[in-house]
């Protein structure tokens, strides 16, 4: 399966989705002008990955900041991950960022996937 690798920018996150090496990560800042368009290839990639996933998957979300339009799309990403067997979310937040910790907790209440919380 092809690797999806997007460099981060000042308003879009870095994306690395690599089935072979077991790397699944979205990190950085997310405030694109058109969040639906930005996340479409991510959701498409996950949909095809779901047809033949690895036995277990650790999907890392390490976001420094996201806007409200991105938060809707992050929920869509999580919903796409929800039906994949062996899925686990690793939610990173900066140790003094309570808002990002709470955001992760809220997402974990909205989908049926185990969340692990880590600080950086």
């Amino acid at each position, binding site marked *: 399966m092809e690797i999806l690798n997007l460099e981060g920018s000042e*308003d879009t996150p870095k994306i690395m989705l690599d089935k072979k090496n077991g790397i699944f990560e979205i990190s950085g800042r997310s405030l694109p002008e*058109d969040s639906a368009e930005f996340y479409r290839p991510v959701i498409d990639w996950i949909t095809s990955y779901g047809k033949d996933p690895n036995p277990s998957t650790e999907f890392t979300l390490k976001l420094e*900041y996201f*806007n409200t*339009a991105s*938060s809707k799309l992050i*929920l869509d990403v999580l919903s796409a991950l929800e039906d994949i067997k062996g899925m686990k979310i690793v939610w990173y937040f900066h140790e003094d960022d309570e*808002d990002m910790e709470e955001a992760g907790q*809220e997402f974990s209440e909205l989908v049926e996937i185990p969340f692990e919380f880590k600080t950086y």
Partner: protein
Amino acid sequence: MNYIYDLHNAMMAQNLIIVYQGEFTQETTKSILAMAERNLDSSGEESGIKRKVFNVMVESLQNIVKHSSEANAAAGNLTSQSAIFMIGKQADRYSIMTGNPIKKSVTADLKRKLDELNQLDKEGLKEMYKEIIKNTQISEKGGAGLGFVDMARKSGEKLEFDFPEMNAEYNFFCLKVNVPREA
């Protein structure tokens, strides 16, 4: 030429650290954010407060970008240039302030929505956020309908707003969101 000095004095009196009036696009949004970040960094502001200010700035700037393009299309003379963005810094808080034209026909709806938000406490806002994010679709303008709820949550204070009249068709939507500086 006196207006230069008058404007300067008005800004000083209100403790405004950034005032921007002009075109509002994603590009100007990024520039204003970068400028504000540098300002907050160099003043050594606490990171939690910095993040909240940044958060409210993004939502309010992107609101203007989304809605000014609509005003643009609807009324040739009411361009995005008639919007304004400001940040004020007081000893106890930052205030993120915006003003932009909105159609009179949507004013009552917006006012009701904001009044409703101001009735809610922390838990109520959280519930509303979760309710909207579960059920919303991204609009054509790219919004999730969560911006004001998020601003209210990050602020922890009531949103202040007013709608002075511009002309027969438009009001000027003024919004002030405070972010307290003592965490």
